[in-house]
């Protein structure tokens, strides 16, 4: 399908936690989004905020698309104030999808809080034919409770870590990398999405040490979203050569061994 900017009506803009929302809107595309792909979203008839913002496709059906987002600044705050029947514009579906044809004996999916937004569709696609487990880190117990309730329809095993639980907690205390360090089981492949600090630590403390094949879904500030402006590049080292690759076009998913961290 040609990548065009579609105007879409909001169906729902639901609060999951104090700063996390699920927005559902009309699906204007005849084709299906693939796990790993994303949308570029903008406010209709606005020149400020100027650039479209990228959000992973959280879920979809024939009539609707949804994104999961966290309020981190002015634009996401404005998004959270939109209501049913308001209009937004989106460009999709963008990016290279995860390779869905592969099967894994044991697959770990690691999310840093809102990073689950970039992994949800992947989990839905992969859980039938693969032994899949989710590891997810949160800041507070309230956040963990709300997300675990929200993710229940996935019917998968969820291992949660909470940075700052109050007193005795039913969750592991610490960050998700600390939880994974204590994990004695092994996996044959790992997929992750989350803050850069988490991904860096995950790579050096778990993936590199245990030599696990791993893939990261990366984030970047984007302008065109379709690969022509070279604004969203990250350094990738492959076959001895270091090059800048586009998160919107060659990504957003990259082999974790190839990422050169700045």
């Amino acid at each position, binding site marked *: 399908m*040609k*990548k*065009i*900017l579609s105007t879409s009506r909001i169906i729902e803009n639901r609060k999951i936690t104090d700063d996390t929302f699920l927005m559902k809107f009309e699906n204007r595309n005849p084709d299906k989004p693939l796990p790993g792909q994303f949308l570029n979203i*903008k406010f209709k008839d606005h*020149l*400020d*905020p*100027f*650039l*479209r913002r990228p959000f992973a496709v959280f879920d979809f059906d024939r009539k609707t698309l949804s994104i999961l987002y966290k309020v981190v600044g002015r634009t996401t705050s404005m998004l959270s104030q939109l209501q049913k029947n308001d209009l937004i*514009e989106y*460009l999709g579906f963008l990016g290279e999808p995860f390779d869905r044809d592969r099967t894994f004996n044991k697959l770990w999916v690691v999310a840093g809080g809102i990073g689950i937004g970039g992994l949800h569709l992947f989990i839905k696609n992969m859980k039938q034919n693969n032994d899949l487990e989710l590891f997810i880190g949160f800041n507070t117990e309230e956040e963990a409770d709300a997300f675990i309730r929200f993710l229940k329809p996935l019917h998968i095993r969820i291992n949660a870590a909470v940075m700052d639980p109050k007193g005795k907690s039913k969750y592991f205390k610490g960050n998700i990398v600390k939880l994974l360090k204590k994990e004695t089981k092994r996996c044959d492949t790992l997929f992750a999405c989350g803050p850069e600090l988490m991904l860096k630590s995950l790579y050096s403390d778990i993936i590199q040490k245990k030599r696990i094949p791993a893939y990261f879904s990366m984030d970047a*500030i*984007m*302008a*065109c*979203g*379709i*690969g*022509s*402006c*070279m*604004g*969203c*590049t990250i*350094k990738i080292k492959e076959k001895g050569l270091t*090059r*800048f690759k586009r998160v919107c*076009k060659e990504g957003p998913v990259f082999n974790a061994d190839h990422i050169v961290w*700045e």
Partner: protein
Amino acid sequence: MNLKIKIGKAEFKNPVFTASGTFGYGEEYADVFDISKLGAVITKGLTLKEREGNEGLRIHEVPCGLINRIGLQNVGVDDFIKEKTHFLKEQNAAVIANVAGFSENEFYSIIRKLEGQDIIKGYEINVSCPNVKKGGIEFSNDKTLFKNLLKTLRKETKKILIVKLSPSAGNIINFAGIAQDEGCNAVTVANTFKSAVIDTRKQKIKIRGGLSGPAVFPAVLNLVLEIKKAVKIPVIASGGIYNPDTAIQFLLAGATAVQIGTANFIDPMISISIIDGIKKYMQEQKINDINSIIGKVKI
């Protein structure tokens, strides 16, 4: 209704071009619309050797605009010829090659390589590059370097020669005059404005780069008005167009053609909407030939 315009000997089907750096080599946008509908595609700046571009933050949004420091990441002229021209021919696109050199020799070598490519109608010379043989001063900032470069390049090519002027150079009007004197067929007004943002929490520079987008439109419109008063050669306006009205303002101010750049990031189909919008304006105003409105408004 005639939308055709001429720059030198080259004719273009309409005055709507896409700006260098915002449209790649056209491939990604062929997924969005038929790029042969454009007056011209101006390629990403081509350097003699492939360039990786800048490390670190490359783009930063500002109200109604964007600061960029991409750093001319491009495949280099040889790979452009080998890998990108075939596609452009297949698409039937009209192409102007933007050329970026870091010495007079580099510009000359790039043009020599492209001269035999029929798909290229002409060159847009990016003079906002530092001349590494002259201590890094930008060609656009030094009248002697600028003049000598254009003199050399004019002899090298039979195709149309356009020079993209820098609005941050002192006295852009003088440079437009030199371009005319040295036989350039047109000037692009203008490249991005040098800009900066400071991160107040870290108390450090967040980005320094070129500002573009709707925020610069009124400033570039004024430059077009002033330069049209000073030179007779065509002006191609580039700076902040975001709808048909802003494109038409440039034409009325004297631009023979316009470039759509940062607006492609608002809506990838915006250049087609602008062509349609210009046609609608002509119908409403009962204008038969686009050339009759070019330069109708003067200072």
